[in-house]
Structures are given as structure tokens and as C-alpha cells.
């Protein structure tokens, strides 16, 4: 084996990969190890399927899992049409001036701190929902709407990137056949860009699942699983933020690790789904 710079570089990068993999898998092991007392005390099963009521000795995180899904899924569904439309305008449909302005705006939105969205939500959206729909105002709906706005820039940027990376030869061919802008978008660009756009969608959903502050500020954090969009809910992440202050040795505190595992699994599922679709696409081509 020669000491060429190529070899050294390869080994260094290989070590980096190993280190990254070790860190990530040790986090999972760490969470399982620290969560063990909880799983022993109240059976492994009841942690995932039971209600949360520390005063009664119940440490289930099911309401938080449900709460997370109740908030993240509508947020993603709301963000999708918004992002699709914006991405279409930015890449194909808009005039050059509009594209530029929108592009700058979207990039600017990615830089706004989450807490600002949360604050605007508390002072504008929550009273509106309380007066308009009733209920407490702090609810699934409020958190979902703000979360949708929060994750759209991610989706828009991913969508735009995939749309613009379609081979221009195909687009020009369609143009030569007399296809107008909308036809080119729908029949040529969209099918080609679909894979990349799905990845963007799933990554944005991952962000919605993992966001802490919006739900903590706007969803009300009640410990009962929501039964409608106007009910308060607590997400896994908000639960961690609220319980992390409990006594270190208490079972309440240990539930943080169960939440961590649940979030880990959510994210892993999303990433595996993206990888799987990438793989399928590469097989097809």
C-alpha cells in the first residue's frame, strides 16, 4: 500500500464515517440503557401504549406519540400545496423578476428563528382561533399552521432544486414539439423531478416531527391525547422539554429516553423511506 495522498484522504474520510456511525448508534444504545429502569418498573409495553399520569404512577408516552402525529402530519399536508405552488412559480411559471423576489424571500424565511414564528403565533393566531373556532386557542390547529409555514421553505428549496436539475435537453425537446410552460411542467419536468421532490417532502416531515418550540409554545401541552384539531396536545419533543427538569432519578425523567427512542424511530423510518425510494429510482433508470 502506497502512501499516496489519495490513500490518506480515503482513510481519513473512512475514519470520519466510522466515527459518525459510532456516535449515532451509541446514542440509541445510551437512550435504551438509561431508559431501562422505566421499562423495568412499568412494563415495556405500557410505556408505549399507556397514558401519562405521574401522580398515579403511569408513565406512558402514547398521548405524546399521538400528539406528535396529530401536529406533524397536518402541518406537512398544509405545507405541501403551498410549497408545490411556490416552487412551480420560482422555477418555471413566474416571470424572472417574480422568481428572484420569491427566491430571496424563501431563503430569508429559512433564516428566521423558530421562536419568532412561535411568538407571532401566540399573539396573532391563537386569539384568532380562540375567537373564530372556540376552544382554548392553543391547540393542534395553531401549532400545525405555524409549523406548516416553518417547514415550507425546506420543501420549496428541495422542490425547486429537483425541478431545475431536470435535463434541459428534455425540456427543449418538449418545447420544440410545441408544449407550453404548463405542459412542460406537468408532463416532462414533474415526472422527472418526482423522486427528489419526495425526498424533500419526507425531510420536511422529519423536521415537523422533530420541532420542539412551536408545539411547546402553541399546542398547549396538555397530557391527554387530542381528539380533534381544536384540542391541545403535547408532542414528544415538548414533553422532553417539560419533563427534563424533573428529578434525575425519577421515572418521569426516565420517560425522556422513551420519547427519544420514539423520535429516533420516527426519523429513522423517514430516512430509510428516502433511501429506499432513491434506490428504487436508480434501479428503474
Amino acid at each position, binding site marked *: 500500500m502506497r502512501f499516496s495522498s489519495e490513500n490518506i484522504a480515503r482513510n481519513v474520510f473512512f475514519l470520519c464515517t466510522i466515527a459518525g456511525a459510532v456516535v449515532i448508534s451509541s446514542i440509541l444504545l445510551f437512550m435504551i440503557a438509561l431508559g431501562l429502569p422505566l421499562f423495568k418498573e412499568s412494563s415495556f409495553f405500557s410505556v408505549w401504549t399507556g397514558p401519562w*399520569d405521574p401522580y398515579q404512577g403511569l408513565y406512558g408516552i402514547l398521548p405524546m406519540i399521538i400528539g406528535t402525529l396529530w401536529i406533524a402530519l397536518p402541518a406537512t399536508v398544509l405545507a405541501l400545496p403551498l410549497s408545490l405552488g411556490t416552487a412551480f412559480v420560482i422555477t418555471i411559471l413566474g416571470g424572472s423578476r417574480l422568481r428572484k423576489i420569491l427566491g430571496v424571500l424563501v431563503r430569508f424565511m429559512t433564516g428566521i428563528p423558530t421562536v419568532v414564528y412561535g411568538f407571532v403565533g401566540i399573539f396573532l393566531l*391563537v386569539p384568532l382561533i380562540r375567537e373564530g373556532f372556540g376552544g382554548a*386557542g*392553543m391547540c393542534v390547529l395553531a401549532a400545525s399552521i405555524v409549523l406548516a409555514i416553518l417547514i415550507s421553505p425546506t420543501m420549496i428549496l428541495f422542490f425547486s432544486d429537483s425541478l431545475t436539475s431536470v435535463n434541459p435537453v428534455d425540456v427543449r425537446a418538449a418545447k420544440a414539439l410545441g408544449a407550453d410552460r404548463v405542459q412542460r411542467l406537468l408532463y416532462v419536468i414533474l415526472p422527472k423531478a418526482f423522486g427528489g421532490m419526495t425526498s424533500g417532502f419526507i425531510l420536511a416531515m422529519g423536521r415537523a416531527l422533530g420541532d420542539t*418550540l412551536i408545539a411547546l409554545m402553541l399546542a398547549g401541552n396538555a*397530557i391527554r391525547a387530542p381528539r380533534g384539531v381544536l384540542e391541545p396536545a403535547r408532542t414528544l419533543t415538548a414533553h422532553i422539554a*417539560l419533563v427534563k*427538569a424533573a428529578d*434525575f432519578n425519577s421515572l418521569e425523567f426516565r420517560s425522556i429516553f422513551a420519547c427519544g427512542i420514539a423520535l429516533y424511530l420516527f426519523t429513522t423510518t423517514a430516512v430509510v423511506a428516502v433511501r429506499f425510494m432513491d434506490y428504487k429510482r436508480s434501479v428503474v433508470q
Partner: protein
Amino acid sequence: MRKTSVRVLVIFFAFCFSASPCFGEALDAFEGQKGTIKIAGGTAHIPVMKEAAKRIMTRYKGIVITVGGGGSGVGIKQVGEGLVDIGNSGRAPRPEEIEPYDLKMFKWAIDGVAVVVHPANPVKSLTKDRLKEIFSEKIDNWKTLGGADHAITVYTRDEASGTREVFWEKALDKDLISKKALFIPSNGAMKTAVANDPYAIGYVSVGHMDPSVAPVTLDGVTPTIETVANGQYKVSRGLYSNTRGEPKGLTKLFIDYLFTAEGQQIVVDNGFISVK
């Protein structure tokens, strides 16, 4: 990444004109001292901590004091683990918290926990039994109590809150808190939430009350500084600063400062009751 436990790093370093020698000699103890004091925990304590820190830091540039929140549970845990120098709590630490860390506690103020509603709410007086019924969701509409025909929104505090613990023990007699109750992570956020929701009921530290929220008379006693001080209003507690082992150096100076006449004046200025 919990931004709600806003780390308030108050550095009023140089260039500050208020550093004129108009302060009493209480601050002289810090003469020639250098270093940092890290404070975290109870959110009721924050205004007093910030004011004390500001006065010390404007006069002595070598001292840096950081004041964080997090809640009483966090304060006790972090000081025990040695992450901060002073851990504040709005309740006395429990024996099982004191024991493993050898915590020393210093009670420098007395505070009440007041039930609050939106100022526009006509319901401003409740009996303890009614309060329990509201918090356990047995009464869920303000109409029952003579208010608007609208569902009651119950706000409560997170598991780490000393305010919650005192309220639960002394106002609710450890009765149920509805599972539909909304959780708010600090005294400040609770005040904002109630001030913005006309149908809210919640509870805050008496020291944090201002005209944006209205106190509720409980069993005929209105929570004010006077009624808490003379013991008429029963839902009260001490505000504690805890250290791991006997405080030393700067930390000791800081705690001593809280007990000086000037320190206790800060306590009173912020709406708490002096221990002297």
C-alpha cells in the same frame, strides 16, 4: 434546545454611567473580586437575581453573573450536579434532594401563589372548593360562576415548577388537575398566556403580578403582598437559593448580598416579601 429557559446573560459591563458610587456599602464586599457566578432554576426568582446581578456587575467589571431559568427542579438538579453555582427553587428542596448533594438552602424572600384570570373576567372571587372544581374540570364553563358563556381554559405549570407544587398542595389540597389543562413553562409565560386569553384561569407568583392579569380572591382573601406577609393568604412559600455545600468565595458574597438591607430592598421592589 429549549429557548424558553432563556439564558439571560446580563452583561452591563463598562461604559455604564449608572456605575456612579451612589450605592450603599453592601456592594463593597465585592471589592477586588473577579470571576463568574452561574445561576439557574426557579423562574419566580429571575427579576431579583437580574437586578442584583446588574448592580454588582455595573460596579465591578471583573464579575460576570449569568441568570437562567428552567424551574425549581432544574435549579436543584443543576446545582447538585455542579453545573451552576446557585440553584434557585420556589419550594424547599426535599430531603432526598438535599442528602446526596449536601445542599445548603437560603430563604431570602416570601412569595404567594395567586390565582389569576383575565382582567375582563367578571369572576374575581372563588371559594377553594370552586377552585378545585374548576381545576378538575367539574365546572367547565364560566357561566356557572356568573361569567361569560364560554368554556374555561385551565392553565397549569410544568412538572419542574415550584409554583405548581405550592399551588397544588396549598390551594388544591393535592386534588386533581384536569388532563386538558394547558402547560406553560414559566411564571412570565403564564402571565402572558392569561393576559391574552379572556377565558383563562391560571396561577402565578404574587411578585410577578401586574395589571395585565387580575388576582382572584380565594375564600375572601385577595392575594396581595400585605395578605401574604401577614399570613392571611395561605398559598405562600419561600424563595430559596441553594448551593452545594457551604457557599464559598463569590457565591457566598452574592448570597450574603441578598440578605443585606439593599438586597432585601430589591426583594421588596420586585413585589416579594422581605424575610427580615
